């Protein structure tokens, strides 16, 4: 099983979620993050004190999928989260050793 972590723009979340759901993916988790890459933040001034705010608000989407669904999921995310502007985000893929559904105790593929 693979874990996909995608850091995307907030206003793309709804679209990406719907697209993923349509491909048959049944679960996901999101988390508020702040980050930067090529796209850096902005300056904020508060009564003369100037701050460079590098970190920008993004949303991190985590989807765990069976190995077979990986590519489809990645493609779906990439195509729906893309605007072509810097700041579109990144996708990180890693391998999970195990997945367990707490309610039933099921393990492995069936638990996803």
């Amino acid at each position: 099983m693979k874990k996909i972590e995608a850091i995307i723009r907030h206003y793309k979340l709804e679209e990406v979620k719907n697209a993923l759901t349509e491909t048959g993916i049944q679960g996901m988790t999101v988390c508020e993050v702040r980050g930067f890459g090529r796209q850096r933040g902005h300056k904020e001034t508060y009564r003369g004190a100037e701050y460079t705010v590098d970190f920008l608000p993004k949303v991190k989407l985590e989807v765990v999928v069976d190995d077979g669904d990986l590519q489809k999921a990645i493609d779906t995310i990439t195509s729906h989260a893309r605007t072509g502007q810097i700041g579109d985000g990144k996708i990180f893929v890693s391998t999970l050793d195990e997945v367990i559904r707490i309610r039933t105790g099921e393990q492995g593929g069936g638990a996803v």
Partner: protein
Amino acid sequence: MKTQVCARLIVAGLLLLVMSDLAPAQENSPEGTNAVSVPIAAPAIESPAVPSVPLAKQIDKGDTAWMLVSSALVLMMTAPGLALFYGGLVRKKNILGVMMQCIALMGVMSVVWAVWGYSLAFDKSLGETGMGRFCGGFGLLMLKGVGAGNTVNGKTIPDLLHMVYQMMFFIITPGLICGAFAERMKFSAMLLFCVLWGTFVYCPVAHWVWAADGWLASGDHLALDFAGGTVVHLISGASALLCAIMLGKRLGFGQEPMPPHNLTYTFIGATMLWVGWFGFNAGSALEANGQAVYAFVATHLAAATGTLTWAGLEWLKRGKPSILGACSGAVAGLVCVTPAAGFVTPESAMILGVVAGAVCYFACTTIKLKFGYDDSLDAFGVHGVGGFAGAILTGVFANSTVSGNDDYKGMLQDSGNLHQVINQLVGAGAALALTLVGSFILLKLIDAVVGLRVTQDEEIQGLDLSQHGEEGYIFY
């Protein structure tokens, strides 16, 4: 460096004290050779309007209604007003610290005022000459004789109402100082400081300016201060600067970002202050009369132009007007118009607001950066500087047709005569002197006894947890 700066301030304070001692003498001399025109007034009739006639005044229900409301409005300024204004500007971990300071002051200063503060500020038992001109006596301790029926001060509201209205000022004034030592002062030290400061700094200055027999209230040294430009803002602002310097900078100041954690609170607070300030300024007429209306209008217009000026300057200088700028400008305008409110025309009030917006903007950005002191929430930059500007400008713009009192004429009305401006400077200078010397001694004393500052660990953890064992927001 810290001590050096403090030392300089103290010297300045003492100088001012001396000056203010001289100034009266100078002006007392009927042969004054300077530009100041001195009304040749016998000391005995210093406050000619007060003595006997007013005793005949009846309590008026309209005035009573207005002053009850004004008292409530001024309390609302401290909390939720000031607590939100300041609270929004600190980091999240210190929000409750700020709020606690406000509500604790509502508790402790009220008791102090009832027990001895009102007496020290407004009692006249020390006589109209001599000592009585510089502080109140003990005649009203525990509000003895301060009742709801009598109007010993010749007002149209009960003495007790005057007392409680003034109590609200006694609460908010030390509250303003909190902006300077926010995020790092020990709660116990802060309480101690405020009680002592209220007793030894605020009460005398209030007596000078507002008690019928105060030396700045009438006579040669008459310094106009309608609602507390000097009594409230200047002296709290000056103490704030001293506190900021003597406590030292916040840990990480200049290295870590310390942006306001909740500007929406700052906005709510600022606008509540604006609304409450009508009680503060228009209420200072102590009647629901024409002067109160003038003060109301002046207050509002100065806040309006203050807002536009500060935000406008930001728009010019950094390309964007900010909401913090707009709020700061509003407060700056309000501070600056405070001493002038019942004395100036609406037009003048607009000018006052513009000046306030500009000088306070300058003080909070350029000056603060240059000197590098950490006046966390700009208590000095707004209240000290704005209060000082207001004191002087009152001397410039005061117009006797507004106040209906022929003695209250500013430079412009008085054909360029600097007399009133100088009086204003003397009054402000004397107040500054007492404030700086007094605050310095008190801070040193308290530092020795309980310590002024929380520990490093406590500061990093934040005042909310370290001083009060609570968290402001638990949003999960």
